[in-house]
């Protein structure tokens, strides 16, 4: 087992979320918002999509040294081995059988011909590409789809028979049905795609012949890491400073306001850029600590999350300070003071639980903007390491090649589709969460 820094933090975060979830699950004041989320079809469908993305990300986060090549690989890599190892020489279109660019080919009879060579792996099993291709693809797609569909239906039957009576009504509700429909769709389509990728390059290949589908899937982890780890780093600072500034006011408030105004006035891109430059220089001068390419890239990813966290806590801090100022004047806080409750107990028992909804909404909303930001940062070369798989790097690489005729569109589209799916699901889920926790729409406060 090789444990990279980011892997460790991801699993730590997962553990924390589970613990928090179990703790809050029983609390009465969480029940109503959670039920509201549970009843919303949009939320459940988005949650399913997010769940699958997370699954892929987690699989990709378990690393170990491969026996074959002495590289560091992850579980996902092992599962996607055919995709990883069946690379071509250069570009090829999705489902193509021929290479994108022309080459000098040596024929069987020794003559040289200038034409499109056959791909090494994509469609290699076809004897007569023109005729067979479409039917072969359709056949294989249906087969894969059927496999996936069968799996889901089997699983559903199993679940239905095992499930206790009390949970059955929940399963019957419209949102649960929508969620299961989504599960069905995702699993079947993905099964089809995965089955097909054994025979074709489903999304084509990029400049160095690497399968684009593989790249897109590997990029999921990068996006997730940036979206979640940054939050892990940002939350403690924002919560502590925001609440302290709002509650104690006076010089504490002045100092904290000064700090976050100063941080805010530096343009964030520049601050991130300057910090990444510093990290690069530091890493260049301390070569020995970074043994392999993967470890180095991972450290750079970690530093990126750190820097993003440090530059983005100010927004939430400001919100929490404003809310704490309001809460401080609430009569139940004054009542607690009158009853002789100590200040730190007031903070923990009265202030903190009543600002958690702002924290939750902020976390879920920021996730999508962080994923989008990663793409932009990679474009300016202050994002992740160029060797890391990320959608930003895919777009960057593709963009430089857009001038080619005919245009190489598949890398860009793959990155677009995956990124769009993740961000859209996150945004839709965030909207529902915000509506559920908004104190004005609820019956509380």
């Amino acid at each position: 087992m090789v444990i990279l820094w980011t892997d460790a933090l991801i699993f730590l975060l997962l553990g924390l979320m589970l613990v928090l979830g179990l703790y809050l699950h029983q609390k009465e004041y969480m029940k109503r918002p959670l039920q509201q989320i549970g009843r919303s079809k949009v939320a459940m469908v988005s949650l399913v999509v997010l769940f699958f993305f997370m699954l892929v990300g987690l699989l990709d986060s378990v690393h170990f040294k491969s026996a074959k090549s002495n590289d560091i690989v992850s579980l996902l890599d092992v599962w996607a081995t055919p995709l990883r190892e069946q690379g071509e020489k250069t570009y090829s279109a999705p489902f193509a059988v021929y290479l994108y660019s022309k080459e000098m080919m040596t024929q069987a009879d020794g003559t040289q011909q200038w034409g499109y060579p056959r791909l090494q792996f994509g469609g290699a099993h076809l004897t007569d590409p023109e005729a067979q291709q479409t039917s072969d693809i359709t056949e294989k797609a249906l087969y894969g789809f059927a496999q996936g569909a069968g799996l889901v239906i089997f699983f559903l039957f199993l679940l239905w028979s095992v499930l206790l009576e009390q949970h059955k009504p929940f399963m019957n509700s419209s949102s649960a049905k929508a969620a299961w429909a989504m599960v069905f769709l995702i699993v079947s389509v993905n099964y089809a795609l995965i089955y097909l990728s054994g025979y074709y390059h489903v999304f084509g290949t990029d400049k160095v012949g690497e399968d684009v589908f593989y790249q897109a899937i590997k990029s999921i982890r990068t996006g997730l890491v940036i979206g979640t780890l940054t939050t892990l780093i940002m939350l403690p600072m924002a919560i502590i400073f925001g609440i302290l500034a709002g509650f104690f006011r006076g010089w504490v408030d002045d100092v904290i306001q000064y700090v976050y105004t100063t941080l805010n006035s530096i343009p964030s891109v520049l601050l991130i850029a300057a910090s990444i430059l510093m990290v690069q220089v530091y890493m260049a001068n301390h070569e020995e600590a970074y043994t392999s390419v993967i470890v180095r890239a991972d450290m750079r990813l970690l530093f990126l999350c750190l820097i993003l966290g440090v530059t983005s806590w100010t927004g939430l801090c400001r919100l929490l300070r404003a809310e704490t100022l309001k809460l401080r004047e609430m009569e139940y806080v004054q009542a607690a003071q009158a009853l002789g409750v100590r200040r730190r107990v007031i903070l923990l028992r009265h202030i903190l639980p009543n600002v958690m909804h702002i924290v939750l909404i902020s976390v879920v909303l920021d996730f999508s903007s962080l994923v989008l930001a990663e793409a932009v940062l990679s474009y300016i070369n202050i994002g992740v390491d160029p060797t890391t798989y990320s959608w930003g790097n895919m777009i960057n690489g593709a963009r430089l090649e857009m001038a080619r005729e005919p245009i190489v569109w598949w890398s860009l589209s793959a990155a677009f589709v995956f990124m769009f799916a993740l961000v859209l699901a996150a945004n839709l889920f965030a909207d529902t969460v915000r509506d559920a926790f908004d104190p004005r729409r609820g019956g509380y406060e």
Partner: protein
Amino acid sequence: MIQYIIRRFLYAFPLLMGVNILTFVLFFIVNSPDDMARMQLGQKHVTEQAVTNWKQQRGYDLPLLWNAKADGEEKLTQTIFYQKSVGLFLFRFGVSDSGRNIAADIAQRMWPSLAVALPSLIVGLLVNISFALMMVLFRQTYLERSGMVLCVILMSVSSLFYIIGGQFFIGKLLKLVPISGYDSGLSAVKFLILPVLIGVCSGIGSGVRWYRTLFLEEVEKDYVRTARAKGLSENQTLFRHVLQNAMIPILTGVVVVLPLLFMGSLIMESFFSIPGLGSYTIDAINSQDFAIVRAMVFLGSVLYVIGLLLTDISYTLVDPRVRLS
């Protein structure tokens, strides 16, 4: 009110000092000038002499904070801190690592930035507010709900795709306007159409949602009920009363970004080859030119602080409750 402005103005100085110190720490303490020199000259096989030369050429051969070898006040002034960071206050940006005068470059390049950013802001504002008003007019109908879904979808697409897609479809396929580039004077207009259009489109999703929230907050207030009881129709109430009140947070929100328009959008300028301050910054980052990056950081902070000041002033001007209290 003047006193209020003066007080806020005085507050700007410790802020800028803080920014200065922060950037100084970031640039010089994490990595010493030696490290920077080594990186600029290439990692290995770098002689001490080459490093010293490089540092001397750029004025990095002085001590960081305190020069024990000099006399009198020069103990403080003959240091990197004084020469490089304090000089920023006087807008002495100095010379870039490649030898150009930074101040002159900035003065020249800020106009193209403004030429892209200002129309984007204004057109974007008009479009967003109009759509948001329409949403509020048709609130709780299917039109609004589908509009909101559309907004979420638009918001979930990365701005990079808008740019690349826009450049491809409009520039390449339809060949309506040039994809990138810039020209001086009025002929710049044809180069600006695409960036402004794409800038507006990529901001519609989140902008409409934000303004809709503002408007809805106002619509739920009591004076709207009074206006309806007077006999005003839904439309009249929206346009006369709600819009007037909502303009206060909208206006102050716009004012705060006005100074920052000079800094330009890094992405836009880079993709569309606009010679503004944004692309200036990106080039500096790519070539790791610390002098320029420092200067831009300071400039950005100054503009942000000016923005804060303008916001406070505009609040007192626009909101009668603040103006006449």
